[in-house]
């Protein structure tokens, strides 16, 4: 398997008032194509900051970040936006479905952004919604769905464009065990079909157990597994 992502000595400083806060300190790891990687650690350990850098939502203060062999750590805002649209899928803790869009429109949106032909969009969205058993909900708004259904829609929205990298921030945090399990299985299944690499920030032991590797964070630094 080829290397999808390499983080080398990534550091992130924030300025909070007059103080500089170091959220991530000299973190390095790599991720192979199709790999499932968990980032775990207590609150404030730097998981989210690291995830934002991996997802090109934020830029590192120091260090190198390679995605598919390209240095992406120094990209400007527009270039990062371009990468996110094309190559990165996001699964959010609170699903973050767009409330004015139906289930169908939420799932179709990444393809629409990538200017995929409408016929192809319809085909792909319909297939994926059937696969997760939500085709009967396609014209419903997110407010009309259950928590588990929303998270499944969020997962297929992240994967429909077949991204190379999927960032998942606490995807099971607001779900009961049954739904958390089914969501994880869905991610795994789509991961096997599409070959996307996953970085999942989670406290959930069940999620971590199903990942191929783990990065442990504490006070912004990577620490060995206990």
């Amino acid at each position, binding site marked *: 398997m080829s290397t999808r992502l390499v983080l080398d000595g990534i550091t992130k400083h924030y300025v909070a008032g007059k103080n500089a806060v170091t959220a991530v300190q000299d973190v390095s790891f790599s991720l192979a194509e199709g790999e499932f990687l968990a980032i775990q650690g207590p609150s404030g350990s730097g998981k*989210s900051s690291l995830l934002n850098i991996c997802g090109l*939502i*934020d830029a590192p203060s120091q260090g190198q970040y390679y995605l598919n062999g390209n240095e992406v750590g120094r990209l400007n805002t527009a270039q990062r936006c371009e990468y996110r649209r094309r190559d990165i899928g996001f699964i959010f803790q609170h699903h*973050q479905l767009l409330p004015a869009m139906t289930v169908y*429109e939420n799932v179709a949106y990444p393809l*629409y*952004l990538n200017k995929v032909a409408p016929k192809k969009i319809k085909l792909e969205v319909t297939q994926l919604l059937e696969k997760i058993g939500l085709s009967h909900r396609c014209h419903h708004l997110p407010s009309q769905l259950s928590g588990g259904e929303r998270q499944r829609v969020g997962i297929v929205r992240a994967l429909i464009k077949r991204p190379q990298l999927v960032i998942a921030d606490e995807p099971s945090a607001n779900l009961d065990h049954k739904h958390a399990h089914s969501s994880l299985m869905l991610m795994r299944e789509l991961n096997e079909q599409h070959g996307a690499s996953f970085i999942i920030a989670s406290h959930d032991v069940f999620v971590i157990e199903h990942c191929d590797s783990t990065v442990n964070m504490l006070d912004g630094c990577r620490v060995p597994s206990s």
Partner: protein
Amino acid sequence: MNRLLIAVRNIVRDRTRVLSTVLIIAVGLMALLIGIGFMLSTYDALQEIAMRSEGHVIVLAEESEPARGGAHQQLVLANWQDMRDQVLDDERVLRVLPRARFEGLISHGMNSAAFFGTGVDPREEFRVHGPFLRTTNELDPWLAENEMPDLMLGSQLADTLKAEKGDVLTLKVQDREGEEKSIDVRLAGLYQTGIAEIDDHTLMVNLSTVASLMGSENISQLSIYLLQNKNSAEFKSLLQSKFNGVIVQTWDQRAELFDKVTAQYDRIFAVMGIIILVVVFLAISNTIALSIYQRRNEIATLAALGTRPMAIHANFILEACLIGVFATGLGMLFAYLAANAINLSHVMMPAPPGRTEGYQIFIYVSWPHYLLTSLLLIVTVMLASFLASYNNARVNIADALA
């Protein structure tokens, strides 16, 4: 992906605030359109007064004082009968009225007053003024050429002279040679224009009365009434080239009051328009800014998914545009209903300065003005929403999603 439908859903989500914004825009537009309707009806009335009093096209002798609005008391337009006959041959012409201006002193018993008189063709003169000159006479012909000529007096001048219909009054003038002349006239009736300055100082007699009094067949001007006002400028050019030794003017060149009032109203409604545009601008800016603040999370999600900032702005502009279209539609409906309600309720306005009587307010419904004003408001709405979204929609994705 139907962006219009998504924008509608976003608007409906925030219905309370959007409704207040829609009402602000709609009521503002209604006020503006009612004002414009009033302005247009006033312009029309003033134009009608000016055209009916002076004619669409006026022919003066070159020796006349060409200053606008000046009283042309000199009787210097000679051979006007030929000119009138030639002009009347044109099928665009409705009437040609000769007018001879003169001035002097009028007495009734112990009461005397200075006057500005006009010698007119009574068969035609009282037909052209319409509702802008009311007379007490009921039967034609006025100003009969009896042994004692008839006289029509401005209503307030008659009050000053304490004269009543049938009374005999004396006109005293200086003729062209400077010799004093006088003539007794019978008061045939009164007229009222509603303009104090005119009703207080003017009178009318038959053209032949002026000729015998002043010792001249000349007149001051020929007032030409056309079937359609739009032909005025063209007809003026035609007469200017056809007749030598005359000055030809269109009604608007002599309508000083019309110019003053339109300039004044234009300024008033420009200020009113600017105020309403500012209110609309602030209302929509506020709505969009609050909407952005409430939807920071969605904006961050859109940005995280790779939506370009301009596309996010475009969503807000589209929403504002829809609000603007709906609000202006409602505003036009409000204005249309209010205009009709006002017109049907016969509301009277108080007498304006210089006039002796009020008038019924009338509001025009001008669809071109309705559409143009609405378009201006929609452009304002779009500009306000662009600035509001440009200033507020640049969220830090990480912070907004935390």
